[in-house]
């Protein structure tokens, strides 16, 4: 664990940027300016920010749909993400995909396919490539508590363990899968127990503590990078919004939300930074204004960007198109 002051401030910056950008997605969705759906990681941002910040530049991430922090930390700009959400040509996928269904290998981010846990297998494959080529890189793959019930979770975890691949598996355990509570999802107390089936080490971390997520992920990456094989990290947290922004989540007890509100990852971090004299109030306010400006600029950029033209939709099916004579 070697987080410098700048790193700690950067972590807070990314937490706030993720929060603000997603809040904006939410508003735009409710205004009918974002079509289809909008998902946020509200209250759980420390997970994707933490595990992504612990990566090295050439590592690969295979995120899931509550990992906006991953896209941002890895360098995909708010502008491109906002344009993505608005279906604009300047979006990460130029309008082909929407919202969180995005990836860009220029930033080492594998696209998220909607089907949960598919990226556990895909991320494992990236790690396999590193192992075959003898590269000291790692892959990280993420899914939700619900996603761990899928077959691909099992097949990927097992393959990674058998071959000791340099991959780290993150689980965002936010206690619900859409409306389904943990007790209808699994008959174990901690998702981490799933790892026992593969002989894979696991860790349970406070998913609302970005420093803890960072540290544990970093250790796991180090181990993987040095041939020690995969780790499964369960990040305990609570989904503070509905499943998506249309869902009022009446099925979640209000007290549970009240309780978790106190553990908000951004508040947590702010307290940590202030109490340990790492940052001053003004500095943190500075982050706020920076974030505010960035998100505003992103929105203007996206609003001003053109839509793709209808013909664009016919392009790009194949990497190597076959010419018709």
């Amino acid at each position: 664990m070697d987080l410098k002051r700048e790193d700690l401030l950067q972590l807070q910056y990314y937490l706030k940027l993720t929060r603000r950008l997603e809040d904006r997605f939410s508003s735009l969705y409710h205004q009918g300016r974002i079509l289809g759906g909008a998902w946020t990681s509200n209250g759980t941002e420390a997970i994707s920010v933490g595990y992504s910040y612990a990566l090295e530049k050439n590592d690969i991430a295979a995120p899931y749909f509550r990992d906006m922090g991953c896209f941002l930390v890895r360098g995909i700009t708010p502008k491109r993400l906002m344009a993505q959400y608005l279906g604009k040509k300047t979006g990460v996928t130029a309008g082909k995909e929407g919202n969180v269904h995005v990836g860009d290998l220029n930033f080492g981010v594998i696209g998220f396919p909607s089907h949960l846990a598919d990226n556990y297998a895909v991320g494992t494959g990236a790690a396999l490539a590193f192992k075959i080529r003898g590269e000291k890189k790692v892959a990280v793959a993420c899914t939700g508590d619900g996603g761990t019930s899928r077959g691909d979770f099992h097949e990927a975890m097992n393959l990674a363990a058998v071959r000791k691949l340099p991959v780290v598996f993150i689980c965002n355990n936010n206690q619900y899968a859409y409306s389904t509570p943990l007790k209808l999802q699994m008959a174990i107390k901690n998702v981490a127990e799933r790892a026992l089936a593969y002989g894979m080490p696991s860790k349970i971390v406070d998913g609302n503590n970005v420093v803890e997520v960072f540290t544990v992920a970093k250790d796991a990456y180090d181990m993987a990078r040095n041939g020690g094989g995969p780790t499964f990290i369960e990040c305990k947290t609570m989904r503070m919004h509905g499943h998506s922004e249309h869902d009022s989540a009446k099925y979640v007890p209000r007290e549970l939300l009240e309780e978790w509100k106190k553990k908000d990852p951004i508040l947590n971090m702010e307290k940590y930074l202030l109490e340990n004299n790492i940052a001053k109030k003004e500095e943190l306010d500075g982050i706020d204004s920076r974030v505010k400006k960035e998100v505003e600029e992103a929105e203007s950029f996206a609003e001003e960007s053109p839509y793709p033209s209808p013909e664009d939709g016919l392009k790009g099916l194949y990497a190597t198109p076959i010419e018709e004579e």
Partner: protein
Amino acid sequence: MKEITYLEAIKQAMDEEMTRDPSVFILGEDVGIYGGAFRATEGFLEKYGEWRILDTPLAESGFTGAAIGAALVGMRPIVEIQFSDFITCAFDQLVTVAAKNHYRWGGTTPIVVRAPCGGNIHGGPFHSQCIEGYFFNVPGLKIVFPSTAYDAKGLLKSAIRDNDPVIYCEHKYLYRRIKDFVPEEDYTVPIGKARIALEGKDISIITYGAMVHTAFEAAQLLKEKEISIEIIDLRTILPLDKKSIFDTVKKTNKVIILHEQTKTGGVGAEVSALINEYCFEYLDAPVIRVAAPDTPVPYSPPLEEAFIPQTKDVVSAIEKMMRY
């Protein structure tokens, strides 16, 4: 008669069948306390309890396989796939087990798999697909795709009572957008029978699902130009109702096939091939398919609009054919 939406029709069919037959039950993600992502099972958990309305773990293959097992020993499960796109995860159980049980060893598998399909809802590649193409070359399955509230209710009842695995495609765009008068008493719509949705004499549009409504819009516009369109709503995709297809070809001698599914290897290919094989001499013009292009369903509005066949595409195909 009472006017209800397409979604309400689906809900009523399930509700009535569950009341009638204790072997009917529902399983899938969020069908219980939440009442289903599209609210098709709202209130069912309270009414039927957690053993007939099962919120499952997030595991399409596992719960589809479980439905198959329950069906083999006498139950009539309805599987809800949250969005039809996720049916890819249950593909093996449906194709390997459900479709082949009866032929292979005589096991009877009366399951219904509800698959909320289709685009026009800005869902992007994974919340907009039509999935009938994945299963269309799989002997042993039945596939239905209603276009009206009346058929939605009647076909779902037939599917539940049928002894074979039925994939029930329901179009999300239609859920709350269309309404029909349906009888208050019990009725069914037979699997395997198309219907003449509109009688006409110049050109037939053979279609199904949400595209039936696009066909109607086109027919309306063409009426002004004195072109009389017959619309055949297939309703059942597998097996196809060949007689209805051939009858309309013999009547109008000109055929447009219209579907939202991508063109290559779509249902339209089979319909065209059947017409060619069995009605060759009745054709006055080539059979034209109006279908989505061969790409995933794009997200951005201008792209999605270009992807999904529009009324104007049908009109121009028909005008071209009339000039043939």
